[in-house]
């Protein structure tokens, strides 16, 4: 086995050279090569941590804004509802008062119209007897040649009383 031939100077020499090479490699790695690697890793870790912090902060801000928005919305809603309620109440009151005024005027006009109707009916009724008597006299004269004014007048009076009661009753019912 060549590894165990310690008589060969190369076997021990390679171990000595190994120590030299290993030592140089160790020194170079430790002094020049490994620190930058650690730095890069640390920088990355720091950057990730700061990014995470920033993200957390942004989330907090967003959450706060969201809560504010929600509160503002709720407040606006209650305000709007109270405004709507007051407007509705005011409009109702106004409509009521206007309707009252209108009703009063209408009632007044109805009353005036009824009065006018009653007056014109009374006037018509008062002229009715004369017209009826004249008409009856003219008819009877045409039929029999003569007319007893007193009898015609009495008959018209009786008939008018009978119908007048009826007419008055009907008029009263209207």
């Amino acid at each position, binding site marked *: *086995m*060549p*590894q*165990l031939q*310690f008589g*060969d*100077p*190369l*076997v*021990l*020499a*390679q*171990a000595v*050279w*190994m*120590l030299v*090479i*290993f030592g*140089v*490699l*160790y020194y*170079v*790695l*430790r002094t020049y*090569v*490994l620190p*930058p*690697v*650690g730095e*890069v*890793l640390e*920088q*990355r870790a720091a*950057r990730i941590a700061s990014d995470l912090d920033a993200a957390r902060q942004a989330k907090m801000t967003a959450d706060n804004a969201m809560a504010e928005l929600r509160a503002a919305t709720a407040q606006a809603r209650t305000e709007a509802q109270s405004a709507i309620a007051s407007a509705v109440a005011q409009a109702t009151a106004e409509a009521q008062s206007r309707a009252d005024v209108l009703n009063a005027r209408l009632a007044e006009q109805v009353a005036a119209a009824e009065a006018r109707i009653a007056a014109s009916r009374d006037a018509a009724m008062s002229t009715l007897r004369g017209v009826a008597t004249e008409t009856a006299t003219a008819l009877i004269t045409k039929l029999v040649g003569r007319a007893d004014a007193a009898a015609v007048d009495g008959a018209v009076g009786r008939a008018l009383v009978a119908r007048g009661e009826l007419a008055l009753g009907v008029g009263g019912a209207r």
Partner: protein
Amino acid sequence: MAAEGNTIDALSQFELGRALGPIGGSVNFSQSNLHMVIVAGLILALMTYGMRPRAVVPGRLQSLAESAYEFVMGLVTDQIGPEGRRFFPFVFTLFMFILFGNMLGLFPYAFTFTSHIAVTLGLSLMVFVLITVVALQLHGRKFFGYFFPEGAPLWLAPIIVPVEIISYLSRPISLSIRLFANMVAGHVMLKVFATFVVMLAGLGTAGPVLAVLPLAVNVALVGFEVLVAFLQAYVFAILTCIYLSDAVHLH
């Protein structure tokens, strides 16, 4: 190198020769040492060229360099704790040196310097000296209490103390022989099956067909050797960390 006559020559691959011409020869610089220099160059190339971009989002080579760094850093801090960070450069150098040496040895025509007991013993003695010096530095005379656990009955001391001393002294032996034996066994196996391929292929008509079998075995063995190459570097590094942890904490 391959089959000479009908013999299997599995050991000539471990023979040392002088390298770098007459200058290297005059200082006994072997091809084994040349491979160590190549390994050192590869490690330095990976860690400097790979880390050159210093990117926040690493590329492939930078990822490799960083994962090597973080792997060893994890090893050191897990085993020793935060105070183990000062040993990180040493463990990193050790791990990368052995890993790259094992891996480089798997290439054809390459020499596996970790298959030499002188090299592995040198590495493990380095570890042994380090752990002893660290333990003496940190704990002074209390370090010798390590060989006799507190609370053990005093009459057991004649048994416990020699056992503890032997187990402590056998650390570099087991460390070096484990790596050496693994690498030698793996390369001997590869060589033996490779010789089978050549010998069978020369056996006439049926030979080349039969030679496929040892070839298939060799393909599987190469994959297995890659695993062993990593595993042995890992074992060497983690045992170094455990020994360093013992030295730092004296349990």
